[in-house]
């Protein structure tokens, strides 16, 4: 038989879906989904940001540019006001001027002064992952500060804060999904494999949890956290709260899959061959629907991220000095702040892009899990 994966039909290359392996088929199907591929790329970038946040962000999340409060994003230029090209990107300087009407100090761009950006800039020192001491940043300036996404009311660099927030929000998603995975697998597994009373009880519990509207429940639980807890303790508690309700979908899936394949011939033959319960579950049953579990987990990622964002937005979730997307949006809560500093909403863009990417990737994976379906 021909080994190559393609054949020419009608002058066009066609994949040999008749001889491809299952994994090949899944990859082909996923690869063909451009949106899913782009989404995977974007999530890759987000992952790099979360790993190297200290390096990519020019400043720490709390550092204030006291001379540039509520300052608009500084744009990076390659051409100066006279149209001259500069190989090194630069930003313009600015001066604080008094608004003649409100008498407030507002920063005004000063095109006469050019401040070049330096790449791999030596700046504020930090400890990467709390381990390696360094002061190398992706970019920075030698004079004053560069705030490419602007600053908030008290002059903190929004770009840097978003980089750190990306790390926290994604970690909430990842750890939350991990908890969901463990709880869902355990509960669904017990219900589906053993059946009987255990199944009945777990099913009732799932039904009960689903009959309570989630956000109000989360709000009530989050409001119950003591005010004097440290930010880290709150972080763990919020994760537990989010996953304690979020596991029901996965649990349901695991249960129904186990129930339906429990009677399948391949499980029966494994049993006849003398496999132990554990071996049957982990070696034979789980792999047969692992792809569905991966899809479910990818899809539940954005839900957890959105839930955390909503809680923190209300001031009931994470709090400073831990910054997540929700914490950043908290300061955009009232319309006056928003009217004055609309660039606070840039954080929202990150939320939307992340969730979009997870959804597209989830869809791509879902289609790929069933590669021959049209």
């Amino acid at each position: 038989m021909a080994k190559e994966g393609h054949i020419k039909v009608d002058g066009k290359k066609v994949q040999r879906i008749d001889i491809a392996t299952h994994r090949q088929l899944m990859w082909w199907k996923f690869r063909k989904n451009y949106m899913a591929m782009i989404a995977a790329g974007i999530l890759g970038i987000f992952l790099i940001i979360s790993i190297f946040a200290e390096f990519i962000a020019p400043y720490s999340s709390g550092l204030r540019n006291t001379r540039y409060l509520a300052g608009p994003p500084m744009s990076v230029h390659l051409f100066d006001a006279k149209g001259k090209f500069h190989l090194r990107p630069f930003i313009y300087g600015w001066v604080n001027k008094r608004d003649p009407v409100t008498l407030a100090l507002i920063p005004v761009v000063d095109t006469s002064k050019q401040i070049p950006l330096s790449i791999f800039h030596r700046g504020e020192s930090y400890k990467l992952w709390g381990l390696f001491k360094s002061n190398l940043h992706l970019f920075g300036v030698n004079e004053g500060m560069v705030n490419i996404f602007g600053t908030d009311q008290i002059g903190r660099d929004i770009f840097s804060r978003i980089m750190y927030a990306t790390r926290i929000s994604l970690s909430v998603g990842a750890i939350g999904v991990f908890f969901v995975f463990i709880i869902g697998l355990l509960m669904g597994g017990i219900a589906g494999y053993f059946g009987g009373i255990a199944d009945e009880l777990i099913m009732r519990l799932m039904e009960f949890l689903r009959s309570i509207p989630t956000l109000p429940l989360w709000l009530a639980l989050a409001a119950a956290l003591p005010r004097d807890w440290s930010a880290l303790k709150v972080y763990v508690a919020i994760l537990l709260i989010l996953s304690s309700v979020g596991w029901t979908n996965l649990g349901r899936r695991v249960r129904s899959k186990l129930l339906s394949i429990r009677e399948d011939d391949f499980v029966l033959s494994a049993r006849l061959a003398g496999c132990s319960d554990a071996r049957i579950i982990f070696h034979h049953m789980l792999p047969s629907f692992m792809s569905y579990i991966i899809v479910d987990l990818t899809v539940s990622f954005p839900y957890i991220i959105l839930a955390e964002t909503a809680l923190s937005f209300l001031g009931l979730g994470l709090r400073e000095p831990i910054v997540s997307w929700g914490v950043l949006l908290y300061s955009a809560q009232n319309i006056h702040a928003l009217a004055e500093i609309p660039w606070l909403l840039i954080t929202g863009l990150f939320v939307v892009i992340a969730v979009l990417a997870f959804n597209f990737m989830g869809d791509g994976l879902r289609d790929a899990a069933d590669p021959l379906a049209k």
Partner: protein
Amino acid sequence: MLNLIMRRIVTTLVTLFLISVVAFIIIQLPPGDYVDAWAGKKTQGGTIITQAELNNMRVRLGLDKPLYQQYFKWIGDLMKGNLGFSFEYHRPVAEVIGERLSMTLLIAFSTLAFTYILAIALGVYSAVKQYSIGDNIATVLGYIGLATPGFLFALILMYLGQKWFGMSVGGLFSFKFQGAPWSWAKFRDLLGHLWVPVVVLGMAGTAFQLRTMRATLLDELNKMYVTSARSGGIPEFNLLMRYPVRMALNPIVATLGWELSKIISGAPIIGLVLSLPTLGPLYITALLDQDIYLSGALILIYCILVIIGTFISDMLLMILDPRMRMKERS
């Protein structure tokens, strides 16, 4: 049918009992009680309060009794239709909730109607004209709708409203109608404001149900019974509506209760951002102030709404699908 309704009512009562217990536990979870929260606020304001005063207050509010006694008093009062007393507002909870409940219901059910009408219409269009420009636009909008948190969308609308039109899109009434008696003009004013929360709250649900509708309908379109019906010579539009579309309605009708639950879930945060006269903002402040009877009553109301939604969806499903009727009969 009657038998079924009876059975449903019994299970619903059991669920409600469980929810009331859970609600009571949750609202008791925070360390300290209302008196502590109140004292904290007062001391911040500079007032000095003695321990004796606090104890007096506890006795007056019944907070000195053991928890189970507080619960049974609460639940006993609930049975009598008494929702308890709001410490914060110094008024009965029922009174505080008052008109806000009807506004909440109005928004919730308008959103539900908006979601389903739009999702079904667009879903059918998208599936029938798969990969057309319209389908692609609907798909992209659907994805964005799913990915944008409702409060962010509300913030953006508010910002744009402020910036472009210099008007506030928040609230349900213009300033001059607040507290005014009901009139035709006030009703029209309400409609003029209602669409903002409805669109914001319904966006994610519409996107989700639209995708479900499209996917199910695409599946159904290729089923044998459609070809079989087509072989009888039924005109395409009638065929579409009577056969695959009616079949594709099942999953989205089955999730109606769940959808209502999501709308209710999103309501507090949207209510807060858009400063709506609904239960949501009340709920959040009640939680923060540990105004336990108010927050407890609100959790119960939210749960009851979800239960009603599930009940409606089950009934609709029975009307739509004869197989469901058969299953219930046997």
